[in-house]
């Protein structure tokens, strides 16, 4: 037994080394960096320098507010949408199932830059198809990029478009694992299809839904691509700046590694905290 383990670890060593150098060390290192003043050479240990600044920084609170706002609205809407899509995909009435499944999943594989460019075009003030469609039903055109509220909505729409199908596919797998005869039993129990959905399907999907929600929360906490590319670096005027973007600005533009590390740890800490709260809320009774 012992020698077997030793052999196994010897085979694992190359991976573990790489893991230690490129994963473990950066995590520890950035934690240490977050306690150092990195604007001076040499760096010096000053715990209050970054963390103190964070606590009083309006840019941080703005980014935090935007991130949480997107999280609170976009994640539930997307999960609900994904459930509806999964149920439709699972319907025996649906023809060309494979095609729909591909179509729902496709946004995930489309390049981020390409998709962002297309979204910018679609939502452009004068030429975008969205404003034309809105116009045709009598709604005045919206300047998606110059006002904060439409810009935030645009971010949420884009993120939802990109990830709803992905979540729908995961939920579909959950749906298909519910045995058919449970529904037959419910049918014989005179329970309507709608009640079956709310009293059987949803409760049995709970673990899968929690899984999707946790993934989505972690993803949204790190949101970067959309505000960077679609609303042009968190525009208008920081109105869509997220924590991810703030981190980027501090770390890569201002080369303020200490502060960026502190922001990164805050993001990770928040994601873990929210996830734990959610797992606790959704725990199995008993």
């Amino acid at each position, binding site marked *: 037994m012992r020698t077997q383990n030793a052999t196994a670890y010897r085979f694992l060593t190359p991976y573990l080394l790489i893991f230690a150098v490129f994963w473990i060390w950066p995590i520890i290192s950035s934690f240490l960096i977050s306690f150092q003043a990195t604007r001076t050479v040499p760096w010096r240990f000053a715990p209050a320098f970054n963390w103190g600044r964070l606590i009083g920084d309006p840019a941080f609170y703005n980014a935090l507010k935007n991130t949480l706002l997107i999280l609170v609205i976009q994640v539930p809407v997307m999960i609900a949408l994904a459930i509806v899509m999964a149920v439709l995909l699972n319907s025996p009435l649906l023809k060309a199932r494979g095609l729909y499944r591909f179509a729902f999943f496709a946004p995930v594989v489309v390049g981020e830059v390409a998709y962002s460019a297309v979204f910018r075009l679609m939502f452009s003030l004068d030429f975008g198809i969205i404003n034309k469609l809105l116009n045709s039903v009598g709604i005045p055109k919206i300047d998606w990029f110059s006002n904060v509220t439409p810009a935030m909505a645009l971010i949420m729409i884009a993120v939802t478009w990109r990830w709803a199908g992905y979540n729908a596919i995961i939920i579909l797998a959950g749906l298909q694992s519910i045995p058919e005869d*449970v529904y*037959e039993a*419910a*049918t*014989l*129990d005179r329970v309507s299809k709608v*009640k079956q959905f709310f009293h*059987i399907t949803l409760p*049995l999907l709970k673990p899968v839904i929690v899984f999707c929600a946790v993934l989505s929360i972690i993803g949204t906490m790190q949101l970067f691509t959309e505000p960077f590319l679609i609303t042009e670096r968190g525009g208008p005027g920081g109105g869509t700046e997220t924590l991810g973007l703030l981190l980027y600005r501090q770390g890569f533009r201002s080369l303020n590694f200490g502060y960026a590390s502190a922001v990164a740890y805050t993001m990770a800490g928040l994601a873990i905290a929210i996830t734990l709260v959610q797992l606790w809320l959704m725990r199995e009774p008993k």
Partner: protein
Amino acid sequence: MAAVTLTNVVKRFGVFEVVHGANIDIADGEFVVFVGPSGCGKSTLLRMIAGLEDISGGDIAIGGKVMNDVEAADRGIAMVFQSYALYPHMTVEQNLSFGLRMNGNPKADTERRVKRAAEILRIDELMQRRPKQLSGGQRQRVAIGRAIVREPQVFLFDEPLSNLDAELRVQMRVEISRLHKELGVTMIYVTHDQTEAMTLADRIVVLKAGNVEQIGAPLDLYDDPANRFVAGFIGSPKMNFLGAKVVDTSNSAAIIELVNHGGARLHKPLREAFPAIGAEVVLGVRPEHFFVAGQGDCDIPVKADVAEHLGSVSYVYANAGPEELILEREASRQRASGDHFTVSIKAERSLLFDKAGARIR
């Protein structure tokens, strides 16, 4: 309570016909068992009665009312599934009351029904558990309880005991029998186990490849099967089939020669039909109908390959010529493997079939 009538019921899956015009009359309060080998269409028939499968042809009536276009929920039936199909996220109590609660049944009445079902099935102690925390037998009870709570006109069971071990199966079989006596409700029960069929049924419907082969009381099927399939299916161990040839006929009997047993001859009285001389026929003899040499109408020599003595009963697997025979009771007592001995067949304790398997009476 209600009678169930199937008239020329046909089921097709696409172009593939799996039930070919079944006619079955089930009286009010009767316990009927559908039995047959795997894939013969038992579940399909049951699911058509339940309303879980469309009816491709013919009529199904429950309580005198044709149900072809009535929703499953409105047919007044309850079904117990082979897989139990319990709601995994609900406690036993919630499982039992779910249907009633969803339909706005008065709370007091729901509680009364759930309590009664729990008492009948002795599952009071399990009410707060979830299906995961129950044994197979307990789950089965809950599944039956869910059916009882509905107070249906007809109970349908689809192989409810096949996931249980042998001992529990016997126990549950007795309970289901007791339940039928207690509730007095029509029950239709599907199984491929002929022992379950024999012990539970008022009447058995034997199915084969989508056809009804015979309908009758257990002992009638045992004593007087309509064909070789039913004769072989009912009874355990299986009936022995001996190759034979008609060598002579009179106006009340046929003389047949057992071709694999040294030309032994049997004078077989017949009432209805007389096969042609030279026709190939099959003689069916149940294991328990071999007698001590000289006591029957035709003696045949056998050699015991394997002898099994279970105490109350002994089996001998005898390979006499190319035909393996199973012997039971007197003929097999005190025999050991390797023994050569002679057994005897009685004409009135044997059945004659033609080459196609139809009974010659």
